[in-house]
């Protein structure tokens, strides 16, 4: 058999999902299905003020009107989701929030360890503050004190609703309106947790803020909600990463992330997404319908999205930037790897509104097996965005001949003084390249990993150091044949 064909087969053979395990922590479940009662239940569980409940109900009622308007324009195929067949609330059995890590369920800590997230060591060694989200409820927040002293607010969003209602009311939904799309309306009605970050004026946040998400409860949709505000002249780097246990049924995940950068502020948002992609026959796996959007609201503000997407059965995700402030900058760096029967339709939107706004898009799609990988991007330059610039580069790498790669760039330029530049390439891992590497003693998996890592280097190097190493390993693992 030819080496490439063998690679195709071995990557198809990814059997046991490397991080496949389920923690049996009993959950506090709301009854199955979605109704006004469930929305009220969630809000009550969270002790929310009335305005929040009203806001959720409004979203829910709007969602009902969208009943048959799930987006269908993406190049994705999946059975219709029965939204009444899911649970919308699950909490680990912990009545009172832990005061320190010692109070955290040891089994939970063990789970984190398996995922390579040793909280205790992280605290001591890396200086990374971790707001660990486990099944929709935050169970551990570290470094809170230090951040507090600096005036940084980094807490579960439910806590922000209680303690910082003025910020939440001012900014929530200010970038992604409730009615933006089907999934946003759904998320707004039922979101259970997520993170809230506020960086005060002029502060360069001295540590990377990170959140690890896990989906653990069977049939529980996850509706995370993240809101990050960088006040004038501030800077923050936020990391989001996740791995999830193996499971059989499709799981919906519809998160919403909103970023707001005021004058001269900068937000760097990095994601490594490695949810269960389904088995080699395409059974199971997470459905990931995410809406991520940032507003460069202030002058010379900057938002940079970096994503490494290796998991999920379906990825529907377009982290975007609205470049409102004059001189603001939006950047999008993406690696999307699909294998077996995975489907990804991902990209970005760069909306140039302010003068002299600049955007840069670097997308690397890697497809193997029978997967489908689509880059979909929009660059819109509005009439008043004098001197706007965009540079887009989309590269696709194919492994084998049964996968598909597609590039769908939309460019709308209404400003005579703006410039856009678009480059796209498609290449294949050649048999001769694999043989060459193997002749130097590398296994086929090592060779694939080396070549693919080389292909996505430009994106991986934008990740914060500690994440970059992890991501490089992940890139290899996600294309690995058999568990090594």
């Amino acid at each position: 058999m030819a080496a490439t064909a063998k690679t195709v087969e071995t990557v198809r053979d990814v059997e046991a999902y490397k991080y496949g395990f389920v923690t049996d922590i009993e959950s506090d479940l709301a009854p199955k299905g979605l109704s006004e009662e469930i929305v009220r239940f969630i809000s009550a569980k969270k002790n929310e003020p009335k305005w929040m409940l009203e806001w959720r109900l409004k979203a829910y009622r709007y969602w009902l009107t969208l009943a048959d308007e799930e987006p269908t324009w993406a190049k994705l195929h999946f059975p219709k989701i029965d939204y009444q067949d899911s649970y919308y609330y699950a909490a680990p059995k912990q009545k009172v929030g832990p005061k320190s890590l010692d109070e955290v369920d040891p089994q939970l800590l063990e789970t984190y360890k398996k995922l390579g997230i040793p909280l205790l060591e992280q605290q001591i060694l890396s200086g990374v503050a971790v707001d660990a989200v486990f099944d929709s409820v935050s169970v551990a927040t570290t470094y809170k004190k230090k951040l507090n002293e600096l005036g940084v607010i980094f807490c579960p969003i439910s806590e922000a609703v209680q303690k910082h209602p003025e910020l939440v009311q001012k900014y929530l939904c200010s970038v992604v309106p409730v009615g933006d799309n089907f999934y946003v309306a759904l998320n707004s009605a039922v979101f259970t947790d997520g993170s809230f970050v506020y960086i005060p004026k002029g502060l360069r946040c001295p540590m990377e803020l990170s959140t690890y998400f896990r989906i653990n409860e069977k049939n529980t949709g996850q509706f995370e909600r993240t809101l990050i505000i960088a006040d004038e002249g501030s800077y923050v780097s936020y990391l989001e990463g996740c791995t999830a246990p193996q499971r059989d049924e499709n799981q919906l995940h519809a998160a919403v992330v909103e970023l707001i950068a005021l004058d001269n502020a900068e937000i760097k948002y990095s994601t490594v997404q490695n949810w269960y992609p389904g088995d080699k026959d395409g059974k199971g796996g997470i459905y990931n319908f995410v809406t991520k959007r940032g507003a460069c609201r202030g002058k010379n503000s900057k938002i940079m999205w970096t994503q490494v997407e290796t998991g999920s059965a379906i990825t529907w995700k377009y982290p975007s930037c609205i470049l409102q402030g004059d001189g603001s900058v939006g950047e999008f760096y993406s690696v999307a790897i699909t294998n077996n029967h995975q489907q990804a339709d991902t990209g970005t939107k760069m909306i140039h509104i302010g003068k002299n706004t600049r955007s840069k898009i670097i997308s690397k799609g890697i497809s193997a097996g029978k997967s489908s990988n689509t880059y979909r991007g929009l660059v819109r330059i509005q009439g008043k965005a004098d001197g706007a610039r965009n540079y887009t580069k989309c590269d696709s790498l194919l492994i084998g001949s049964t996968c598909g790669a597609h590039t769908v760039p939309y460019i709308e330029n209404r400003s005579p003084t703006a410039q856009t530049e678009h480059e796209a390439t498609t290449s294949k891992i050649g048999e001769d390249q694999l043989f060459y590497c193997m002749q130097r003693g590398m296994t086929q998996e090592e060779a694939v990993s080396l070549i693919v890592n080389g292909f996505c280097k430009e994106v991986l190097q934008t990740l914060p150091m500690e994440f970059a190493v992890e991501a490089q390993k992940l890139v290899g693992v996600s294309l690995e044949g058999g568990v090594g």
Partner: protein
Amino acid sequence: MALIEIKNLHVSVQGKDILKGISLTINAGEVHAIMGPNGTGKSTLSNVIAGREGYEVTQGSVSFDGQDLLAMPPDARARAGVFLAFQYPVEIPGVSTSAFLKTAINAKRRTEGKPEIDAMEFLKLVKAKNKALGIPDDMIKRPLNVGFSGGEKKRAEVLQMTLLEPRFAVLDETDSGLDIDALKIVSDGVNALRGPTRAFLVITHYQRLLNYIVPDYVHVMAGGRIVKSGGKELAYELEAEGYTKYLAAA
């Protein structure tokens, strides 16, 4: 002791017989040269030794250090100490030469039960070898073989060989595309590796290389067979007379 033993090797490519009964025994410590006209099967022999796909061995055997080489996958052959300096080195865009070298070195070290090479140690090692081979240190920052000149590619092959210290190396026309100075440097690189535990098979078109890498034996290959074997003086004879009479014989 025979390090590599090729017995009555017949190989076909896409149904066409290319090698028609090659027998060759190379002992540790020896350097053998194969000379022959284009299209005669020299690269086919190298590729079969290295384990490339697409070559069907219809008869015969190849053993390496007593093991059945043909039964081993290409990476296992490499880790056992078989090295091929490619006639046409492959470009690997995006992968820096240094990342490639480090991965290859670590694959070998893993086999030897050694830990991964430390970053400083790696740099020191590569710099030393670069110096000996006249390779600018900047070269290892570039993607492997991408945009390399013919000569740079060949030097990069020798650099890899020097770093991996194989027990048996096949050099497939490593001299082609090299000017005389480069040829000397590359030959010095090979000669530095010569020793009682190592063997080389040097494939070349020109006698010139054999002035620098002096072989113990020279074989003439034509029409998929070794048609004549002798000492190093055979190379001079070929230089003077050409291959015509062997072609006729084949």
